[in-house]
């Protein structure tokens, strides 16, 4: 069945069709529609789930961890300041190995108060151990929630499905709703090895000293490494069952490309149309969209970059004092290669400033005129 929905509702339907059982959530613009629809569906019986109203995002995540530790499938969603308020317990969710799936709407951080899109809120959580998936359209949002549960529950690591504020969260698109029966087969109920169970008592998260903590952290790293092939496997299996295949990265016209544009989320959609226009002008250009940011698909990126002459990473985020965050990660992935291509880092679209197809074409043509990257940041669109 096809249904017109905004990106936010694609998250809600993704949670519903994945049979989320507990939804502790707190509303925040531009995420509010996600939890509004979920609360309605819990209230009217469309979903067999418990909606827990909480007093803050910190509590939303804390309740999510508790519910997930009992073996329930848990969904929540937030944005920007709300995600930042969760920060302490984002670490906890990973250490407790609770495979929560959370929607995050990328919104720029305050001050000044703002609600428009930028990726710095979620990228600032990169070292918590949460898996991060940047979606480019509503269909991918819905499909990714289902896949995220499958991967997260297999490796016991939580996952964020991330979408751009307004550009995606509030844009209506026709979305194919998968059949419930097929989803149930694809995503069986969650059965953790350890769960809170009064009949079989355990203590969770108790004091652990230097003689035990290290091994637990090692296991988190191993689990998230295991998730790398899992995202591709699950994305391929999803393709077989539902006809839409997904992977860690997506490439467009890279086979014969000499130059590469690298981006993520909705910026990558715009870049795809720019690639088409540049191709018409005779440019040998391709697009690499990074879909999964954590775990970082370094090997896949290395393999694409090994055959190009230069690449430009377009970041809608910034790590102050350094550079664009995807840019840093892409550079780090190829640093030890024999002859890595020069990689240019562009920062664009901060605070939701529009990035058009023409902007991407300009970025490409600008870097083609440069001999080499002279600094870590090329600013695009800031009024200097």
């Amino acid at each position: 069945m096809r249904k017109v929905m905004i990106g936010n509702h694609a998250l809600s339907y993704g949670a519903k069709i994945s049979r989320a059982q507990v939804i502790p959530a707190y509303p925040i613009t531009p995420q509010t529609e996600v939890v509004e629809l979920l609360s309605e569906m819990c209230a009217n019986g469309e979903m067999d789930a418990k909606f827990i109203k909480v007093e803050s995002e910190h509590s939303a995540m804390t309740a999510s961890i508790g519910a997930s530790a009992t073996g329930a499938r848990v969904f929540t969603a937030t944005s920007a300041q709300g995600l930042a308020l969760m920060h302490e317990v984002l670490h906890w969710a990973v250490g407790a190995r609770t495979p929560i799936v959370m929607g995050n709407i990328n919104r720029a951080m305050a001050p000044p108060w703002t609600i428009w899109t930028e990726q710095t809120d979620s990228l600032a959580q990169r070292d918590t151990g949460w898996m991060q998936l940047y979606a480019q359209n509503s269909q991918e949002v819905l499909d990714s929630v289902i896949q995220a549960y499958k991967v997260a529950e297999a490796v016991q690591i939580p996952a964020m499905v991330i979408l751009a504020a307004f550009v995606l969260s509030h844009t209506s698109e026709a979305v194919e709703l998968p059949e419930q029966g097929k989803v149930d087969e694809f995503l069986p109920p969650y059965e953790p090895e350890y769960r809170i169970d009064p009949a079989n008592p355990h203590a969770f998260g108790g004091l652990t000293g230097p003689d035990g903590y290290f091994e637990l952290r090692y296991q988190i790293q191993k689990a998230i490494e295991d998730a790398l092939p899992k995202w591709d496997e699950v994305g391929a299996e999803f393709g077989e069952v539902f006809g839409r295949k997904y992977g860690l990265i997506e490439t467009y016209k890279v086979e014969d490309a000499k130059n590469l544009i690298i981006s993520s989320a909705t910026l990558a959609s715009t870049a795809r149309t720019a690639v088409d226009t540049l191709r018409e002008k005779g440019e040998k250009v391709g697009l690499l969209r990074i879909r999964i940011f954590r775990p970082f698909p370094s090997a896949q990126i290395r393999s694409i970059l090994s055959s190009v002459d230069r690449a430009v990473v377009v970041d809608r985020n910034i790590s102050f004092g350094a550079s664009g965050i995807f840019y840093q990660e892409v550079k780090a992935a190829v640093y030890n290669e024999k002859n890595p291509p020069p990689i240019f880092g562009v920062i664009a679209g901060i605070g939701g400033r529009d990035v058009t197809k023409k902007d991407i074409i300009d970025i490409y043509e600008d870097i083609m005129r440069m001999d080499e990257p002279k600094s870590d940041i090329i600013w695009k669109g800031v009024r200097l």
Partner: protein
Amino acid sequence: MPEKTEKQIVFDKVKDTPPLAVSLYTMDYNKTGSWRNVRPVIDYEKCTGCMTCWKFCPEPAIDAEKYEEDGKEKYKPVIDYEYCKGCGICWVECPVEGAIYTEEEGE
């Protein structure tokens, strides 16, 4: 899952370690009574058996002891000093003046 060992919470190798910080058994061997510096005492002359203290005790340190009176099944709270940490919540929450009082540990 590694074999259950009552007291083991640290393991030799990663392969033996559970994936999360979890004890393999209950933690009831971990007797927390030595943490106490204030000792709650129940005066059974005043205690009405309302069990408010039992409900509020954040540890399993107050037991509900069953007994019979006039052919009826009743309960009374009994403090388990092996686990009571002396937080004083039972003393604060008790609705009957003087039914729970505290004394310095060691008195």
